[in-house]
């Protein structure tokens, strides 16, 4: 029997909520994607909290919030400690996206769902794979192979293929079939007849954006700039924005424009730095231009990278284009800039993706757009005056309590271990490491000297007054003299590695200085908010640059992939229902649309058993090559090998009679040149028929539109008068098939 496969949606079915699904394969639980939305609504994660502890591995498909946003929270709050798998760009860009999210939030609210450290620790145990790398799981998942494949939507975006015993489960959401400037199209179409395909219905009702979209995009931008207005493109942190940057770069170069373009996120410069080194993951045109001329497309000539808004404010006046995160306008720079620019008629806000449900961006994309919107402007201000004093007092009190607690613990510990113990030593290391955590740093004005000492070195419990640590090195002796530790005498070869460590990877990567400052900012501050109503007078345009396959190509791809079973997730209820009906008719008879927390069993009812093909049998089999395949008819007798395997032996009695079989897929378009190469006059007659020679015609009837489902074999008709040509052409026709 086949491999047991169950799918349980955790979040994101029948709506456009973030994606998160539990896929269990023979009892091994994969959490595929771990998304959150821009509202960071913990109630969405309710189902995840229940299953977090049972998860054996996490697979991430894309680097945006909707696909991995909840990872830090889940790791911290739900004890999700399974290994995480993703591609290198998803890991890196995901990390930057989360930094940007956090910093944007932190700037305007007391954001406490997770911290930068939580993000770091969540991303620390990510195993990075390359495309088409077959990763064999071990332990509980023995026998399961996972492999990421190109999805085409975002850099490093992944279609996951999970294989066990030759059966494929494919998870493909947000793929893109079209080749873009920086990415190739998805390779999803190269998978044929997987046992299960899990895919989304997000775009099922959307159809291809109009051809002239590019012109609208360019025209509206250049028109706004020429009339002296500013253009705001609310973008994601490190995903689709890369494509937009390249489009703008090209347009600017082509028309030699010199309006400034700014890319403003908290992590913009490191984003582009990393992207520059991810060329392996990009499309052919980019890699090719680098290989031949070492032209890195992301050495940007027209786009200026900014990491805080004051730099934008200091920029020279005049029309400009600003790409700022977040795309939802809920927070971040885009929010602030929108508020500033919305009331000016000349300005343009250009949306390149559908806003998440219930966000400001979505509101503005409504038709007609609202005349005015209410927004909350928040900003972090340093504490001053009485507030500051109160804060410091509070901090001091906390410090003292902590110190007291710490010394109590120390006391106990040193009671337990006597003499020169390592605890002292350890505590120092811990403290120095912690010193970057803002709240732990002692305010020099506030605390007494005692606190400083306590923070630096914990006084031994036996001492009355604080003292510098003193280690009494007692040496041990045995029969051969002093006991030495050979390690002490080894020449340190790895000194340079240590030097490297100092450079820096506390942050597991680089964070822009400004951002770092902000984060390490120890100045006490608070958030001030005020609500205001913004008159929306600027023009608003929505153009689809989402880079997702549209309804039509989704259907084409699904029909081509033709899975044995199909699971639909993520997409509005209408879209899901629409795609379901379509697939039932044209793709396969088993289409599932589970509800949240509803477990569906998609174990294939496929029968299969393994046999060994004996050498004797195979020496008599003559294969015929048809495309990638080689086929042959076998009549065999079942036997057993020494180790109890079934094996096929040549048949001893006469072969049973069977209906003759013609195998092959005749393509008229391919057959025509073949015939003409054999010296036969060929042309297409009406209705797809092929007229060969003077009299003979070949045509296909009952055109089987869909390959999947119950459609039968193809029907080909050859007709003509009795003549030599007829038999000649028939022979050529037969040569296209395997006949048994």
């Amino acid at each position, binding site marked *: 029997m086949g491999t047991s496969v169950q799918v349980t949606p955790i979040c994101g079915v029948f709506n456009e909520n973030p994606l998160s699904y539990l896929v269990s394969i023979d009892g091994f639980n994969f959490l595929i994607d771990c998304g959150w939305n821009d509202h960071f609504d913990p109630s969405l994660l309710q189902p995840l909290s229940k299953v977090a502890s049972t998860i054996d591995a996490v697979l991430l498909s894309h680097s945006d919030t909707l696909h991995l946003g909840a990872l830090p929270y889940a790791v911290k709050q739900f004890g999700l400690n399974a290994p995480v798998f993703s591609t290198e760009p998803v890991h890196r860009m995901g990390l930057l996206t989360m930094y940007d999210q956090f910093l944007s939030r932190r700037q305007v609210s007391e954001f406490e769902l997770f911290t930068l450290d939580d993000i770091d620790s969540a991303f620390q145990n990510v195993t990075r794979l*390359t495309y*088409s*790398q*077959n990763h*064999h799981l071990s332990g509980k998942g023995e026998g399961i192979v996972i492999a990421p494949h190109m999805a085409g939507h975002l850099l490093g975006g992944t279609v996951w293929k999970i294989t066990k015993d030759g059966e494929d489960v494919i998870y493909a959401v947000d793929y893109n079939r079209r080749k873009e400037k920086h990415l190739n199209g998805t390779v999803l179409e190269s998978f*044929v*007849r997987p046992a299960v395909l899990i895919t989304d219905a997000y775009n099922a009702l959307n159809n291809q954006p109009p051809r002239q979209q590019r012109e609208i995009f360019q025209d509206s931008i250049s028109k706004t700039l020429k009339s002296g207005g500013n253009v705001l493109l609310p973008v994601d942190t490190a995903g689709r924005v890369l494509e937009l940057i390249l489009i703008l770069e090209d347009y600017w170069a082509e028309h030699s424009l010199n309006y400034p373009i700014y890319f403003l996120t908290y992590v913009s410069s490191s984003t582009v730095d990393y992207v*520059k*080194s991810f*060329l*392996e993951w990009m499309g052919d045109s980019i*890699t090719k231009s680098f*290989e*031949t001329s*070492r032209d*890195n497309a992301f050495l940007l000539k027209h786009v200026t990278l900014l990491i805080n808004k004051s730099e934008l404010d200091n920029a020279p006046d005049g029309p400009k284009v600003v790409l700022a995160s977040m795309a939802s306008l809920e927070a971040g720079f885009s929010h602030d800039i929108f508020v500033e620019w919305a009331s000016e008629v000349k300005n343009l806000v250009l949306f390149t993706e559908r806003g998440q449900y219930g966000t400001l961006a979505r509101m503005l994309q409504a038709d007609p757009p609202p005349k005015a919107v209410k927004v909350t402007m928040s900003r972090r201000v340093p504490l001053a005056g009485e507030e500051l004093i109160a804060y410091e007092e509070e901090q001091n009190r906390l410090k003292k309590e902590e110190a007291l607690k710490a010394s109590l613990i120390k006391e106990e510990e040193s009671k337990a271990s006597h003499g020169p113990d390592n605890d002292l030593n350890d505590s120092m290391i811990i403290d120095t490491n912690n010193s970057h955590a803002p709240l732990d740093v002692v305010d020099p004005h506030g605390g007494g000297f005692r606190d400083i000492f306590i923070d630096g070195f914990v006084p031994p419990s036996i001492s009355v007054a604080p003292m510098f640590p003193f280690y009494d090195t007692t040496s041990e002796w045995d029969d051969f003299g002093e006991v030495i530790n050979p390690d002490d005498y080894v*020449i340190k070869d790895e000194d*340079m590695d240590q030097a*490297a460590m100092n*450079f*820096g990877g506390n942050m597991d990567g680089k964070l822009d200085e400004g951002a770092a400052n902000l984060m390490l900012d120890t100045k006490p501050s608070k958030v001030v908010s005020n609500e205001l109503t913004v008159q929306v007078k600027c023009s608003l345009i929505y153009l689809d640059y989402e880079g997702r396959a549209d309804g039509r190509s989704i259907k084409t791809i699904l029909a081509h992939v033709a899975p044995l079973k199909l699971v639909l997730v993520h997409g509005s209820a209408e879209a899901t229902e629409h795609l379901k009906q379509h697939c039932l008719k044209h793709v396969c008879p088993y289409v599932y649309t589970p509800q949240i927390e509803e477990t569906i069993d998609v174990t294939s009812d496929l*029968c*299969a*058993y*393994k*046999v*060994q*093909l004996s050498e004797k049998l195979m020496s008599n*089999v003559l294969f015929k090559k048809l*495309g*990638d*395949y*080689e*086929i*042959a*008819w*076998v*009549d065999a*007798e*079942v036997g057993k090998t020494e180790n109890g395997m*079934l094996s096929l032996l040549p*048949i001893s009695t006469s*072969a*049973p009679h*069977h209906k003759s*079989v*013609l*195998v092959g*897929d005749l393509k008229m378009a391919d057959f025509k040149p073949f015939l003409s190469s054999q010296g036969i006059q060929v042309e297409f007659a009406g209705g797809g028929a092929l007229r060969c020679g003077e009299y003979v015609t070949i045509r296909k009837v009952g055109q*089987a539109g869909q390959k999947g489902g119950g459609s039968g*074999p*193809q029907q*080909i*008709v050859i*007709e*003509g*008068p*009795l003549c030599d040509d007829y038999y000649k052409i028939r022979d050529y026709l*037969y040569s296209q*098939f395997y006949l048994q």
Partner: protein
Amino acid sequence: MASMGGQPPSSLKRRDAPPVSKEGDQLIITPLGAGNEVGRSCVYMSYKGKTVLFDCGIHPAYSGMSALPYFDEIDPSIIDVLLITHFHLDHAASLPYFLEKTTFKGRVFMTHATKAIYKLILTDYVKVSKVSVEDMLYDEQDINRSMDKIEVLDFHQTVEVNGIKFWCYTAGHVLGAAMFMVDIAGVRVLYTGDYSREEDRHLRSAELPQFSPDICIIESTYGVQLHQPRHIREKRFTDVIHTTISQGGRVLIPAFALGRAQELLLILDEYWSNHPELHNIPIYYASPLAKKCMTVYQTYILSMNERIRNQFANSNPFKFKHISPLNSIEDFNDVGPSVVMASPGGLQSGLSRQLFESWCSDKKNACVIPGYVVVGTLAKTIISEPKEVTLMNGLIAPLNMQVHYISFSAHADYAQTSTFLKELMPPNIILVHGESHEMGRLKTKLTTELADCNTNIITPKNCQSVEMYFNSEKMAKTIGRLAEKTPEVGETVSGILVKKGFTYQIMAPDDLHIFSQLSAANITQRITIPYSGAFGVIKYRLEQIYESVESSTDEESGVPTMRVDDRVTLKQDSEKHISMHWTSDPISDMVSDSVVALVLNISREMPKVVVESEAMKSEEESGRKAEKVIHALLVSLFGDVKLGENGKLVIRVDGNVAHLDKQSGDVESENEGLKERVRTAYRRIQSAVKPIPLIAA
């Protein structure tokens, strides 16, 4: 070479003779270069009709055609995949020749970084060798064209071509260097290329593959030598340079333009940073590639180690502070102490040679050879510190400069090789890329060290084939309708065996379109035959041949039709034509052919009246005829055959007698052997003479 001594049958070219079916399990590995030598790496491998070529280098010590691997030994057109491990000349430089000037039509793969640098390094090679070599193997155009044919793959990415699966691991030799693992029908071969298990300033060390290969083709450059620890080598290197320049001398470092040079520059830049007193001494990196390759090094940091990646977070470690590029010797103002790193590494020609010749007679100067040098190059010669050297113009000059050989080349030494092999435990080891005495010593030492694991170590010479046999079990998966019930021993299984790559599936024809992209097809044939006679005549004639001929009328047109043997339908379309249609399969085609023949005959014999009695009378006659035939055939088989009593035949052979009953076919004889033979013979004669039953089994 010796093995070339005119033995054409040993050649690997596929002759016209059809492949022997046994050949399937023979695995052949033949070094076309780098067998018992260093340079022109090229290893041919073939198994189950699939062929793979590893690397495509040139021999740096030779020029023109003689620098190529022995491509004549193979037929380039049958190679499926060509895998290049890294960009060094001795591994990649004959690739443009192979792609552009031979019949090769397979696919070529290398890593991203290798491809980017490949172009730079070969373009440079072409330019440099123009000075000394007349017969160019290829030009820049060929290199540019070859770029389009090269495909890239990433580390660990599995690629499948014609059923050959392969992927690569980090090799740690230079940026982008890879070790290839090839899997053909379950037999795995690891080709290490050049590798190093020691992490250095910018590269990762070679990975240990997850799976143990069946055959490991491994480099043996350093044989049984052991490297000094890296920090000692680095200290010697910097000490030599420091001493020389503080005495007012010049230091020449001949190095391969790319690869190890970057490591040396990292060392020098760091040393200079730590020694401010040296800041007025210039370091030149005399290679036009210097600037170009830096962007490559900046881009593919993902292929480097953690250390570089962390440094990258702050500033680009490849943006050197104390090193300046030098484009040509004309730009070089040779006034005082300086350090110059120049290519090529072997001092064959080019800038390094020019500088060497102008500096070699001053004993204050020094030449540091930082890596492995190939036999036959000047660099190799001066390591043994001869008194004199021959200059490019043929003059002899004294060699007074100091020559130091401090190896930074990232090849595995004995300790690394033996641990690598011990962890990997391949049953077969093939040593390549090493001079024959080094290789021999390595083989001896490895044999003793791996004595208890039954390892087979081979050191083939160029063009010497290693043949191995693998018994691979072919497993098939029976799926779909055919597999609804697992069969018992003795039952039969019939279905379509579908082979894709090296996976086999057996399925029912109706399931074809479910489990594969193939589908079954029906071909309906319709043929019109001119016939103006009566339709009934055809029916009458057919009835004499076929058991079942049913007449009816066509529902649509109302014309008379008939169906022959339930396969072929005849229809009287008009007075002048009949049409015939049927669904293709061998038997129906045969039936249709007979109908066509019959109809044509009728048209021809139209006026002839068929005499019925003739056919009736022949019953008896044919019986008699048959008996005569049987008798004659038996005589021709056994010789003495007489008619005995009761119509039995008496057969005598060598004194043995057999009685054959013609009616029942029973044979009586003393001799069992004869009895059996007569019975068989009679049965065959019977089946040949008697008419065929109308319906097949």
